[in-house]
């Protein structure tokens, strides 16, 4: 999703605090960004709160956006993810009872995932604890490694690994409960 001339106009309008341009930008990226927020939160209300916080940061800092460095989508997505991380950090602590050097990888049947709809998978992910959910999203969906996650969340790599392991355990248990 590259930045085109329309986006440039939207950006200029947003820099001038033009409500119409902001509305266009908001609605253009509403779908993908809201989905991202939904992955990091437990319900729609929290997702919308994260989304709005993220867009507020976008509108406040859009004058710093550099077209040559990243597309508008990527830039907004990064901000929204960071907003989601802030939200999770504010809401809960990253409790770690065990710091793992190696991630225990419980076996999850790949067919079981494929048999589920995206909505069902999302519901499973949302049942994870916030910190675990965040680590899972960052590692599995966003593709961050444990060092990056540790930096983002302000935790150790071992803690990040533990959260990922915990997420897989919980998902495995949930899948078994659902008898998928």
């Amino acid at each position: 999703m590259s930045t085109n001339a329309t986006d440039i106009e939207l950006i200029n309008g947003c820099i001038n605090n033009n409500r119409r341009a902001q509305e266009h930008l908001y609605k253009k990226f509403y779908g993908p960004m809201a989905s991202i927020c939904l992955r990091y939160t437990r319900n729609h209300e929290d997702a919308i709160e994260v989304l709005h916080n993220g867009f507020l940061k976008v509108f406040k800092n859009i004058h710093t956006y550099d077209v040559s460095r990243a597309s508008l989508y990527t830039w907004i997505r990064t901000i929204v993810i960071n907003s989601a991380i802030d939200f999770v950090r504010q809401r809960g602590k990253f409790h770690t009872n065990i710091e793992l050097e190696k991630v225990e990888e419980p076996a999850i049947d790949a067919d079981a995932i494929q048999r589920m709809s995206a909505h069902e998978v999302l519901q499973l992910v949302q049942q994870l604890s916030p910190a675990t959910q965040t680590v899972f999203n960052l590692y599995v969906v966003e593709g961050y490694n444990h060092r990056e996650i540790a930096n983002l969340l302000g935790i150790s790599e071992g803690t990040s690994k533990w959260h990922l392991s915990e997420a897989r355990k919980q998902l495995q248990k949930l899948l078994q409960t659902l008898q998928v």
Partner: protein
Amino acid sequence: MQLPPPGDPDQNWQQMKTLLDKSMPRGGGKGPGGSFRWWIAGTVVVAVVVGTWFGGKQLLTKDQRNEAVAGTIKTVNNKTAPSVALEDKNSSQQAVPQTNAGNESAQSGKHDPRGAAYASVTETQGANASGSGSNEQTANSNAGNTTVPATEPANNQLTAKHDKAGGHSLTAGNSRSSGNTENSARLLADNNNTSVPSNNSNNNKTTNHRNNIYSQPSNSNSRENNSDNVKSDNAKSGNSNNIKSSNVNNIRSRSGHSNSGNRNNTASGNRNHANAERGSNLPAVKSKREKVNRPGKQASDIINAENEDIKNRYTYTPVISQPSQPSGSGLQESPVTVKVNYTGTTVISPSGVIQREFTYYTQSDLFPDMVQRDKNTARKSSRVSDDEDKTFAFGLSLPLAFPLGDQEALGFNSRGGVNTISDYIPSPHFQYHFNNKTYIQAGLQFSSPQFIRPILLYEHERMSAPNVMEYNSIYARKLYYFNLPISIHHSPLRNFYMGAGLQFSSMMSGIAQVQQIKRFYTPIGPDEYIMSNYYTKFKNDSLSHRFNTNELRLLLDINYYWNRFTVGLQYNQAFNNYVSFQVNPGSPYIFDKNKSLQFYLRYNIWEDKKRNKLSKNQSVLTLK
């Protein structure tokens, strides 16, 4: 994994729009700098407007209102007369009217001194017109010793009578513009007679400057003549019964100074105008004692006498006596040349009745060049002009902050070290002085320490072993702000300033206390051990994001200025919270507002050159 978006975009946009309206109001120009740009601009504009308003009020001071008359007069006096003589005359003049006022009230019971004074003035003209050369003093005596209703008709009658007698009144009236005031001399002499030095009459609204003017130009000889004239005129005119019974006594007892004393009962400023008018005639009056004893002397003779003594017209020989001394005991003499000529202006008495119309020409009208020169001289020694007060100053401030309330001082610097010398780095300030009492000041504090109460920012607890809990907690202990204070100051007392303003503060960094505590739960009770405790700096990280970094504060300031140094106290209070968050979801919200008290020592390194023109011992900022 693309999920269906939650909710309706249009509906959620309304929420977003509300949020935007609150955070980024339209018209605020949320570019670089944000809406604070408008706050700052608005604050500056308001401060400038208020300061200008104060400055404008200061411009309209009494000194400036009187500058046209008093300033000129003062200049003339300063130029020609010794200041000692002036001061003595002024002080004595103020005292004299009270004595006379007391006489008047005692005799008439109901008396408007100003009305009496104007009446006396009117009569004086008439007396001069008659050519007797001495009637004016009789009239003054009447005015001073009779009630207003009785005085005014009598005076008017006299005036009409004398006008009929001849055109000399015109001569006399015109001659007042010469500025020679023998009456002033009489005033002075009479002032010397004053026996009641206290209880300054409220009716005497004559400024010292005016008194100086009216009293200086006189002829020493005229004093005696005037007093004698009074006696003779009273006897001659026959229309002053009261004079015989009362004024004559006064006159004799004071050997010729009673008239002037009686005149002083009233608004001496106005009356003195009249006296100044008469003064021009008084050279005719000025004569030897034998002249006085000839009540029927013709006007032509008086004019001749005036011509003979014209050389003494502008010469004033003051006679200064102590209050206890009788009149005529001269202590000091100083020749004074009068340069103010009066030809009339409109004067309204307290009762609202126009007593007399006249306009006057000040020295500025007659000698504009000289006045300009005098003004330039005066500006060097005083700060009457407010244009000179609009000056700049630049300097450094050395702050010293104190903890307030539950705030705790912390002996760590902005980098977490123990050397706190960096907390006392001087900060620059800039001042713009609207006048000698009001100025606006802006400053920059690049790393100002802000004491706070310990704020729990992060807490992590875990069970590291059975019956052993480990707590990791981080407390914010001290913050560092970039401050931009703008304040306006006004001086209610000399060298003492009070100020108020706004301060924009932006958090730069902070000092955090990191604690690791282990708690062992034993049957006896829990035992706590601090495993580690250290201070570290936090900046632009997850901890600092918990703070509201930008805030606006109310600023109050009092200070004392002396010789470029200023010592003062400054208190500021933030309008919004700098922390408002929950450490954990279940824990209560933490709120707190910043406030600080600073003692500071300020030094103006550079001040505008205009200020430096002043005397060395008197700094510009102390001139109030």
